[in-house]
C-alpha cells in the first residue's frame, strides 16, 4: 500500500458520494462500515509506520501546477500519525453514537466528507493542498451546525465559518508571501513544506509572517481573545458536531504551530515566547473561570477545552522535546477526553432535552454507569496520573518550565482551576439527593452509548498507564524537529533557548 495516505483521504470522500445512492434504511450500517474500514486503515498506517524514522513516511508526490510549484504532496511523521488515527477513531465513535437524528443520511455523508478534510489537513505537505483541506473542513461543519443545531444554529454556524475563514485568509497571504520569497531566492515557485523548511528567512520577515500564521491558527485553536465563536458553536452544534469539533478540528490550529510556525520561523517563535505565553496563560486562567461561571454543562466543557488548549500552546512553545512531545500527546488526550465528555453531555441531553446543571442532581444514584464513565473522564480531564490526561499536561508544563518557570507556575494553576469547575459540575449534577421528579426514572447508558464510550475509557487508561507506544514515535519526530530548529536559528538567543535533547545529539 504505497498510497495509503491517498486512500485514507479519498476513501471517505468516495464513500460519501456513493452514500447518496444508499437507501435510508441501510445508511447507518453503511456509515459504520465505511468509518470502521477507514479506522482500520489508519491502524494499518500505524502498523506499517517505522517509529525509528523521524522523517516523513508514505510520501506521495504528484505535480499539480508545476509552474507555481503546487504539488499533491503527502507524508506522515510521528507528529501527525496519531492525530490522523484519532480523527478516524473519533469519526467512527461519532457515527456509533448517532441516535435518532433527523435526516441521518445527510448527517453521515457530512461526517464522511469532514473526515476527508481532517485527514487531508494532517497529511498534506504542500501549503496549497493543506490550505484547501483546511478550508474544506469548514463546509461540512457549517452544515452540521447550521442544519442539525439548536435554536440559534444559523448565527452560530455563520459565526464559526466567517471567523475562522477570516483568520485563514490572512494565513493564506502569509503562505503566498513565503512562496514569493522562495521564488526570489531559488528561482522557481514552490509550495512544498519541505522546500520551505530549507528557506532561511530574515528575522524581520519571520516576525510578521509569524503573526500572519498565528492569526489563522489562533482563531482555530481558539486562543484568547479569538475564542468567542467556540461557545456558540458548541452550544448550538449537535453532539456529534461538538465531539468532532473539540476532538479534531481545534487540533488543526495547534498542529499548525508545530508544522509551520516552529520550523519556518524559529527565531520569531523564540522571540515571541513571552507574548504567546501570556495569551496562553490568559486562556488557561480566564476561561477556567468562565467555565466555572457556566450554568450549562456543555458550556463548561466548551470553555474547559479552551483552557486545556492553553496548556497545549505552552507545551508547543517550550522549544524542547519534552514540551513539544507533551503538547502533541495532550492534543490526542484532549481529543479523546473532550470528545468523551461531549458524548456524555449528549447522553443526558437526549434524555432530558436540557443541559442545565440546575435541572439535575443526584444522578449518581439513578444512572450509576453513567456516573462512573463521567467520573473517569472527569479525572482524565483534571490530569490524574495513570489517566491519559496527566502525561501530556505534565510534559507540556515540564517542558515550558525550562523557558519560563514563573509563567509555568501561573499556568500550572490549570490543575487547580480545572478541578474547581469539573468537580463543581460533578457535584451539581451527580451528587446530592434526586430533587426533580423527571430524573427519578432516567435509564442508564444503553448499548449504543456504551459501545461508543467504552473504547474511549479503555484508551484513557491504556495510554495513561503505558503511553510509550505513542510517545516514542512522536518524540522521535519532535527531537528531529528541535534539532532542525536549533541549526536553523540565527539569533544567539534562539540557539540558546531551543534545547536539543542529549539523546538526539548523541545520535549525530
Amino acid at each position, binding site marked *: 500500500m504505497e498510497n495509503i495516505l491517498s486512500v485514507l483521504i479519498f476513501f471517505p470522500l468516495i464513500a460519501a458520494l456513493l452514500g447518496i445512492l444508499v437507501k435510508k434504511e441501510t445508511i447507518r450500517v453503511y456509515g459504520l462500515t465505511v468509518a470502521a474500514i477507514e479506522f482500520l486503515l489508519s491502524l494499518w498506517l500505524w502498523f506499517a509506520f517505522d517509529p525509528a524514522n523521524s522523517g516523513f513516511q508514505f510520501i506521495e508526490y504528484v505535480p499539480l501546477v508545476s509552474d507555481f510549484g503546487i504539488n499533491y504532496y503527502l507524508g506522515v511523521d510521528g507528529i501527525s500519525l496519531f492525530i490522523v488515527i484519532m480523527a478516524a477513531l473519533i469519526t467512527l465513535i461519532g457515527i456509533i453514537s448517532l441516535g435518532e437524528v433527523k435526516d441521518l443520511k445527510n448527517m453521515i455523508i457530512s461526517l464522511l466528507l469532514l473526515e476527508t478534510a481532517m485527514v487531508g489537513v494532517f497529511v498534506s505537505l504542500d501549503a496549497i493542498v493543506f490550505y484547501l483541506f483546511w478550508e474544506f473542513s469548514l463546509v461540512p461543519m457549517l452544515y452540521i451546525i447550521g442544519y442539525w443545531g439548536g435554536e440559534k444554529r444559523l448565527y452560530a454556524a455563520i459565526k464559526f465559518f466567517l471567523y475562522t475563514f477570516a483568520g485563514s485568509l490572512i494565513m493564506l497571504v502569509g503562505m503566498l508571501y513565503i512562496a514569493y520569497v522562495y521564488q526570489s531566492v531559488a528561482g522557481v515557485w514552490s509550495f512544498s513544506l519541505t522546500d520551505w523548511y530549507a528557506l532561511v528567512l530574515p528575522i524581520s520577515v519571520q516576525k510578521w509572517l509569524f503573526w500572519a500564521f498565528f492569526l489563522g491558527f489562533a482563531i482555530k485553536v481558539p486562543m484568547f481573545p479569538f475564542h468567542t465563536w467556540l461557545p456558540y458553536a458548541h452550544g448550538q452544534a449537535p453532539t456529534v458536531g461538538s465531539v468532532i469539533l473539540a476532538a479534531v478540528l481545534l487540533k488543526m490550529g495547534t498542529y499548525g504551530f508545530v508544522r509551520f510556525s516552529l520550523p519556518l520561523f524559529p527565531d520569531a517563535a523564540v522571540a515571541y515566547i513571552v507574548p504567546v505565553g501570556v495569551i496562553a496563560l490568559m486562556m488557561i486562567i*480566564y476561561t477556567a473561570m468562565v467555565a466555572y461561571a457556566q450554568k450549562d454543562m456543555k458550556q463548561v466543557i466548551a470553555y474547559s477545552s479552551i483552557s486545556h488548549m492553553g496548556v497545549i500552546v505552552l507545551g508547543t512553545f517550550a522549544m524542547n522535546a519534552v514540551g513539544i512531545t507533551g503538547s502533541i500527546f495532550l492534543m490526542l488526550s484532549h481529543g479523546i477526553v473532550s470528545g468523551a465528555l461531549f458524548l456524555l453531555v449528549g447522553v443526558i441531553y437526549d434524555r432530558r432535552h436540557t443541559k442545565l446543571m440546575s435541572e439535575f442532581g443526584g444522578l*449518581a444514584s439513578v444512572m450509576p454507569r453513567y456516573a462512573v464513565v463521567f467520573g473517569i473522564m472527569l479525572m482524565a480531564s483534571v490530569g490524574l496520573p495513570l489517566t491519559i490526561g496527566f502525561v501530556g499536561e505534565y*510534559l507540556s*508544563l515540564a517542558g515550558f518550565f525550562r523557558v519560563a518557570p514563573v509563567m509555568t507556575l501561573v499556568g500550572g494553576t490549570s490543575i487547580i482551576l480545572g478541578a474547581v469547575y469539573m468537580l463543581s459540575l460533578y457535584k451539581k449534577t451527580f451528587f*446530592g439527593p434526586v430533587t426533580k421528579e423527571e430524573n427519578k426514572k432516567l435509564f442508564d447508558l444503553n448499548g449504543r452509548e456504551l459501545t461508543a464510550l467504552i473504547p474511549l475509557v479503555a484508551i484513557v487508561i491504556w495510554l495513561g498507564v503505558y503511553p*510509550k507506544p505513542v510517545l516514542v514515535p512522536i*518524540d522521535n519526530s519532535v527531537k528531529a524537529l528541535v534539532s532542525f530548529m536549533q541549526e536553523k536559528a540565527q539569533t544567539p538567543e534562539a540557539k540558546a533557548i531551543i534545547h536539543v535533547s542529549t539523546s538526539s545529539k548523541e545520535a549525530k
Partner: protein
Amino acid sequence: MESLVYTALFAPLVGSLFAALFGMKPKSLWTGTVTSLLLFVSFVASVLLLQHVMEVGPVHVTLMDWIVAGDMRIPFGFNVDQVTAVMMAVVTLVSTVVHVYSNGYMEHDKGFNRFFSYLSAFVFSMLVLVMSDNFLGLFIGWEGVGVCSWLLIGFWYHKEDVTRDVNPSISPSWAANEAFIMNRIADLGMLVGIFLIYWNVGSLQYDEVFAAVPQMSHTLLVAIGIFLFIGAMGKSAQFPLHTWLADAMEGPTPVSALIHAATMVTAGVYLVIRAHPLYSSIPEVGYFIALLGTFVAIFAASMALVNRDLKRIIAYSTLSQLGYMFAAAGLGAYWVALFHLAAHAFFKALLFLGAGNVMHAMHDELDIFKMGGLKKVMRWTYIYMGVASLALCGIWPLAGFYSKDTILEVAFNEHTYGIWFVLWLTAGLTAFYSFRLVFLTFWSDERYKKYGFHPHEVQKYVLWAMAPLGILAVVFGWWKEEFMEFVTQLLPAYEVSEHTHHMVPILIVVTSAIAIGGIVVAYVLYHKRLRRNPKIEASLPYRVLSNQYYIPILYEKAISKPYAELADIAWKEIDMQVVDATVDGIAKLVEESGDETRKMQTGNLSDYLKWMAAGAIILAVLAIVAVVKS
C-alpha cells in the same frame, strides 16, 4: 524477592478491581472477604519484605517504562528500603484491620461493594506512594490517594448540603471537593518542585537526585525544599491548608481511621523523611518546617478543647500529632518522626475504630454531650479507646510515651526551647481533650437515655479485628532501640548531646506530669457528669475555638465567594460584553459599511460615470506623486 514486592503492591489492586465488578450490585459478602484476604496477603508480603530488608538489604525492581520524552525517562520502579519497609508494614497492617472491621461496620450499607473497591484502591495508591523509586512515581500515588480520599469522603454522596450551623462540613460531597481542591493547590507546589529537580539534575530517580544534592546551589536546594514541602502541607493538612481534614470526617469512620489518621495524611511527613538528604542540607527550611509543625500542634489541639463532635476531636488530634512529626523531621530527627508516625498510626486508627463502634451504638450520633456512661454497655470499646487515649497522651509504658517523649528531647537538644515549650504545653492539652472525650463518652451520667438511644457493643469479630492495633498501641514503643537501629541504616542517626542525656529523666518527669495533669483536670471536670458553663461557652475565646478560628468562613468569604463572583464577571461582563461584542461589532461594521456603499450602485449611468471620474482623478494624483517622489 521481586515477586514479594509485586504481591504486596498488586494484591490490593486486584481486590479493588474484583470488588468494582460488583460495584453496582447489591451487597455481596464476597467483596468484603476477598478484599480483606488480599490485604492480608499484602500484609504478609510486606512483613516478609521487612524481614528481608533487615537481614539482606533493600530490594529494587523496575517494572517497565512509563513516560519517555526528550531526555526524560520515568519508569515504574519500586524500591523497598528501610523506610519503605516500615511504611509498608504499617500501611498494610492498619489496612487489613480496617478492611476486616469494615465488614461489620458497613454491613447494612447499600454501597458495601463499592466501599471495598475504593478502600483497596486507596491502599494500592498508598503503596505506590511509599514504594516508588522516583518523584513522579510518588506523585502517582500522591494523586491516587487524593482521588480515593475524594471518593471515600463523598461516599454518602446523596446527602444534601446544609448550612455550617447544622453541619460544619456542609455535606459529604462538599467536603470531598474541598479536600481534593485543597490538595491540588499543594500539588502544584509539588509539581514545580519536581520540574526544578528535573531540569537541574536531569533525573527524578531518588538515588540520582540525592547524589546530586552536594553539587546544587544553596538557593536551588532551598527552592526545591520549599516547593516539595508545599506539596507535603496539602496531604498532611498543615496550616493554612488544614481545613479539609476536619471536614473529611464526613466519610465513613473506617475511612477516617485508615486514610485521615494512619496513612494518607502522613504522606507529607513521609516525603520529608524520604527527601532527608535534601532537607539535611537546608537546615533553615527544616527549622521553618519545625516551627510550622509546632504551631499546628498547638493550634489544632486548641480547637479540640471545645469541640463536641466525637470524630472532629480525634481529627484535630491527628492534625496536632502531624505537627509533632513535622517538628521532629524539621529538626533533623527523621527517624524519630518515622517512629512517631508508626506509633501514631496504630493508636490513632484504634481510636477512630473505637469511635466507629460508639457511632454504631449511638445510631450515628456524634455529639459527646449526648453520650456518657457507655463503659457499662461497651466494655471492650471502652478499653480500646482508653488504651489508645493513654498512648496518645504519652503515658508510660504505651507507644506514645516513647515516640512523643523523644520528639520533646530532640526539641530540647536543639536548644529550640520555644518549640519544646509549645510541644510540652500541647502534650497537656492533648491529655485534657482526649480524656474529656473518654470521660464524657464512657463515664459520667448516662445522658443518652434522655435521647432514646439503645447502645450495644459491636460484633465479636470486629472487636477481635481491633486487637492487633490495641496490642501495638501498648507494646510498639518497647522496640524503640531496635527500630532506631534498623531505620538509621538509611536515615541519619540522631544522637542527643551529653547534656540532654543527663536531662532526660527530668524531661520525662516534666512531660509526664503535664500529661497526667491534663487527665486529672478532665477527670475532675467530667468523670461524674457533664459540666457546662454558659458564660464560658458564650465568651469570645470559646466561640473562636469552636468556629475553628473562623478560618473556614474566612476562606469562603475571602476566596470562594470572590472567585465565583469574579468568574461571573469574567463571563457576563468581559466575555460577552467586551470580547464577543467586539467581534460582533466588527462584523456589524463590515455589514453596515457594505450596506452604505451599496447605495453607490444606483443603476444610473451618469452616477457611475461620476464615480469613475473620481476614481480616475485619484489614480492620476497617485501616479504623479509616485513620479515626483522617484
